[in-house]
């Protein structure tokens, strides 16, 4: 990979964002932060990130809305979107929207980095 990987984190919880930024910055990743769905969509369009970490429950546009908009936009639809969910999805409950993967909150650093790497590798 020639250039720095850019990861867009869309989450309204600044403390949580700080925690995962610390973890992500242990790798050669540039972290872009957006604090609500609307700002997230704007930054996705202007910054063209390599991967999006997306919170589900957010003010203005929620995670479902952001994921839907990203899928609709041809220039953004191929960006992997990893949903940050604070409810348990370990029981195989299907979700009503399309994302590449799920990362459960609270986020374990190991799990976060493993999933991010996996989806970045897929992009080549």
């Amino acid at each position, binding site marked *: 990979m020639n250039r720095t990987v850019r990861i867009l984190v869309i989450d309204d*919880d600044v*403390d*949580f964002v*700080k*925690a*995962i930024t*610390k*973890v992500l*910055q*242990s790798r050669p990743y540039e972290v872009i932060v957006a604090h609500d769905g609307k700002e997230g969509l704007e930054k996705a369009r202007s910054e063209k990130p390599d991967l999006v970490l997306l919170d*589900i*429950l957010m003010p203005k546009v929620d995670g*479902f809305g952001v994921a839907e908009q990203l899928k609709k936009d041809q220039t953004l639809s191929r960006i992997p979107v990893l949903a940050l969910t*604070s*409810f*348990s999805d*370990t*029981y*195989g*409950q*299907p*979700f*009503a929207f399309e994302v590449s993967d799920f990362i459960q*909150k*609270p*986020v*374990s*650093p*190991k799990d976060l980095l493993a999933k991010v790497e996996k989806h970045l590798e897929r992009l080549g």
Partner: protein
Amino acid sequence: MKPLTSRASRLLMLSGMGASLGGLLISGGAIHLGLPVMLGLFVGTMVGPFTGGNEAEWARHLEKLLKGERDRFMGILNSLEEGVIIIGPDRIIRFMNPSMARQFGDGTGIRCHKHLHGMEEPCQGFCKLPDVVKGATERWERRFADGTVYEIVSSPFADSDQTPCMLAAYRNVTREKLIELELMELSQIKSDLLLEKTRELELISKDVDKLREEKRRIIRFLSAITHDLRAPLSATQSCLWAIRDGYAGPVNDEQKDLLQRSTRRIDGLLALISDLLDIPRMEAGLLVQEMVELSFNDVVERSVDSVERLAKEKHLTLNVDLPEVTPVICGSSRRLQQVLINLLSNAINYTEQGGISVRVIATEDELRVEVADSGVGIPPQDLPKLFQDFFRGSNVKSDGTGLGLSLSRRIVEVHGGRMWAESPCPETGEGSKFTFTLPRKTDTGKTVGSRAASDAVSENQV
């Protein structure tokens, strides 16, 4: 209106007869015909033709004829059920037939208002006499003080002395009126009842709307409270993990130990919040929305997978005995796994030697799921309290929330099944055995399944 038609025809007959009596024919208006014409009409029919003779014989014959006619008409009047009355222009009753006299008392020679209505003055407002003597026919109803109702047809009538009088036929219609009234009352009662039921239905549907709104309110409330309770813990935990794992600089063993203790407590708190909030969610019937048709063997296998590591760590065996053909039931895969994982991790927690066995027995009506262990077992005094909220066993040290079993039983019950515990396990004579059943009927599964789709999002957000 059938009765009216027959009534009308009978009254017409009556007026015809009354008229014939006085040697006149009255029909509707007033057509007067002379006596000879009338007699001529009846000659042939009554006593046979006169076949010659002198004047005295002719007179006798006429007299016989007249008497015959009179007797005949009197007979008719006497046997009439209707009352017939003739009232003069001075309002004095000139004639009453026996039926009229029976019903009102004989009042011949007395003024009609006095005799019939007990009033000194002529009936104000509804006396028909002035109009009738001038030639009008009136058909009307009158209610008497005692409640009797008469249908009266009053026609003009020239008495034998040619005085313009009023001939009235009285028919007692009290019974018919009562029936009519009863019918009206009945139909009123019917429409009242209908109205009442409609109102009741409206109230019920309002209640249903209220309940639905209440349910939506509970979902929103739980959704908000879950998020607000979990989010700070989630952020804290994520920060602590990041520190613990060295992403904010090197951590020594002592710091690591303290961080480990903190994160474990937060894990416990997060689990408690989930379990606590599961109870009202279960009670609000939200679980039903998750139910779909599912293959039960998959549920068991996934649950076993997630506890396998725990069993291996304690060197416990984990036996799984499933039906060859997977039973299909209607339920929530997520929640049933929650039940199985809870029973399996309890079994692993309370067992130091031997192992755990899971067995699924499928009968025609239900599934029977047994989780047995070779552990410490449950003291007899604890068995009845096992499924109570926040109950913790007296012989074990547990860091669980104390809600696992009570939630599991609730989940099974929402699925229409039962759950119970035995200790020692009847088959092995050691440890304990937890059993739950699930009904196999999937006929309601379709409707439940389709409802699940529309509410899936709201449940996911809780």
